[in-house]
C-alpha cells in the first residue's frame, strides 16, 4: 500500500472521510431552464470567504478608535503594500455579496424553493440577509469618515424612532447618547466578532440543510417532467469555480479602476456635507421614509414607515408558512405578485434615491 493510501485509511478510521466522499459523489443538481439560479448561493458563499480573508488582513493594521481609525485606514491605503487593493476588495466584495444575496434570495422566492421541507433553510437565509445588512452598516462606520459618521447618526436615529424599545436600542447601538468613539468600538466588535460568529453558525446550518434536502425543483417543472441531473462533483463545482474566478477578476478590476474612497475624517462638530447617502442597499428604505408625510393620522410618518419595514421583514421570514401550497392556483399568483411588487419597489426607490439630490 502506498504511504498516501495508508495515511488516508488512518484518517478515515478517525474522521470518517469516506462518508463525506460518498455524499459528495451522490449529490446531483437538477437541470432545467432555471438551473442558472442555482449558482448564486455558491457565489454569495464565495464572496463571504473573500470578506473573511480580506477582513482578517485589514485587522493587521486597522485601529478601532475615534483618534486612530481614519489614520489607520489612510495608512493601509497609502503605506501598506497592496493595502489599497485589500481594502478596495473588501469594500467592493461586500457590495457584490449583497447583490449576489439579493439575486439568490429572490430566485429561490420565485421558484418557491422554500416549500416543505425547506422552511428552515429559508429562515436561516432570511436571517443571513439581516446579518449581512448588519455587516454592511457596521463596516461602513469603521473608516470614521464624515459620510460614515452622518450615515450612522441618521441610521441609529431611525432605530431610535421606534416607540418604547427605540431609545434603548439607540443607546445600545451608539454606546451612549451620541455617535462617538464608543459607537466605533461597538460597531467594530459587532463587525469582526459578533456578526462573524452568528454568520458562521447560520451559514453552516443553511448549507447543511441544502445538502440534506438536495436542490429544489420549481413546482411547475416538477409536475411536468423528470429533470435530468448533473453531478455536483466535479461538473457543477467546476462551473461554480468559473463563476468564482470571474468574480475575482471583477473584484480586481473594480478595485483597480474604482479604488474605494476614504473621504475626510469625521468631525462631531462640523456641518453635514452634501451628499450624505447610505450604501445602495439601504437607499430604497431611506427614500421611502423621505416620501412619507410628517403625520399620518396623528402618528409620525417615520414611525409608521419603520414599523412597516419591520412588518415587511417579519413577513419575509414567515413566507414558507404563509404560502404552504405554492405552485397551485391563486396563492401562487398572489405570492408572485407580492414578489414582483417588492422587486420593482426596491429597484424604483433605489434609482429615485440615486437620481434625486
Amino acid at each position, binding site marked *: 500500500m502506498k504511504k498516501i493510501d495508508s495515511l488516508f485509511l488512518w484518517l478515515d478510521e478517525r474522521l470518517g472521510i469516506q462518508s463525506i466522499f460518498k455524499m459528495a459523489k451522490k449529490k446531483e443538481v437538477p437541470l432545467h431552464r432555471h438551473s442558472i439560479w442555482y449558482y448564486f448561493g455558491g457565489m454569495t458563499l464565495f464572496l463571504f470567504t473573500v470578506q473573511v480573508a480580506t477582513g482578517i488582513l485589514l485587522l493587521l493594521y486597522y485601529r478601532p478608535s475615534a483618534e486612530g481609525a481614519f489614520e489607520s485606514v489612510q495608512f493601509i491605503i497609502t503605506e501598506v503594500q497592496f493595502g489599497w487593493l485589500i481594502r478596495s476588495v473588501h469594500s467592493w466584495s461586500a457590495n457584490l455579496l449583497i447583490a449576489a444575496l439579493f439575486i439568490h434570495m429572490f430566485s429561490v422566492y420565485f421558484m418557491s424553493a422554500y416549500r416543505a421541507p425547506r422552511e428552515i433553510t429559508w429562515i436561516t437565509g432570511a436571517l443571513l440577509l439581516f446579518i449581512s445588512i448588519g455587516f454592511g452598516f457596521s463596516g461602513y462606520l469603521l473608516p470614521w469618515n464624515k459620510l460614515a459618521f452622518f450615515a450612522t447618526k441618521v441610521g441609529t436615529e431611525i432605530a431610535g424612532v421606534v416607540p418604547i424599545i427605540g431609545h*434603548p436600542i439607540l443607546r445600545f447601538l451608539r454606546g451612549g447618547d451620541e455617535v462617538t468613539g464608543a459607537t466605533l468600538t461597538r460597531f467594530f466588535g459587532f463587525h469582526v466578532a459578533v456578526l462573524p460568529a452568528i454568520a458562521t453558525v447560520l451559514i453552516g446550518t443553511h448549507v447543511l440543510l441544502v445538502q440534506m434536502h438536495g436542490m429544489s425543483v420549481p413546482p411547475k417543472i416538477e409536475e411536468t417532467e423528470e429533470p435530468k441531473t448533473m453531478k455536483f462533483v466535479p461538473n457543477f463545482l467546476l462551473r461554480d469555480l468559473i463563476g468564482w474566478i470571474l468574480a475575482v477578476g471583477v473584484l480586481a478590476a473594480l478595485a483597480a479602476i474604482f479604488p474605494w474612497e476614504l473621504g475626510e475624517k469625521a468631525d462631531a462638530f462640523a456641518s453635514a456635507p452634501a451628499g450624505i447617502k447610505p450604501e445602495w442597499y439601504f437607499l430604497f428604505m431611506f427614500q421611502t421614509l423621505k416620501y412619507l408625510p410628517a403625520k399620518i393620522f396623528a402618528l409620525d410618518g417615520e414611525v409608521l414607515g419603520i414599523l412597516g419595514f419591520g412588518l415587511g421583514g417579519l413577513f419575509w421570514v414567515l413566507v414558507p408558512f404563509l404560502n404552504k401550497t405554492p405552485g397551485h392556483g391563486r396563492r401562487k399568483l398572489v405570492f408572485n405578485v407580492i414578489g414582483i411588487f417588492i422587486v420593482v419597489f426596491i429597484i424604483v426607490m433605489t434609482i429615485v434615491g440615486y437620481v434625486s439630490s
Partner: protein
Amino acid sequence: MEESDPRGPTRRRFLDYLLGTSVVATLSAILYPIFKFMVPPQVIEASTNSVSVGKNADIPANSGKIFKFGSKPGIIIRTQAGDLKAFSASCTHLDCIVQYSPEKKEIVCACHNGVYDLTGKNIGGPPPRPLEEYKVNVKGDDITVTRT
C-alpha cells in the same frame, strides 16, 4: 409501584421544583449582569449653560459657525444685518448637523434637505420641529452663548 406511592411523586415534584428554580436563578444571575453590562452608562455632563464661542471677528456678517455646547453642537450666525443668533445645530429630523447657507440666508441640513429660517423655525423639508434657540451675549469683543 412508584406511581401509586403518594410520597414518590410529591418528593419528585419537589425536587423538580428545586432544580427548576435553581436553574432559573443561576441563569438570571449570569444573564442579568451581561445585559446590564451592554447598557452604556449614563455620562453625567457638567451641565454647561454658557460657552464662549469666539471673538467678533471670528463671525463676519452673513456667515455661521459651529461651536461645541457641552457634548452637543451649536451654530452661531451673524445675519447680513449684523445680528447674532445662536441655535442648537442638531437637526430635529434625524440628528445631522445643520449649516448656514450664505446664499439662501437660511439654515439648511444637507442630510435630507431640511430648511430652517433665521428664527430657527422649520420651513422646509422633513424637520418636524424648530431648532432650540440660545441667547447670545456680547461683552466687549467676547461672544458667549447661554441656554435659556
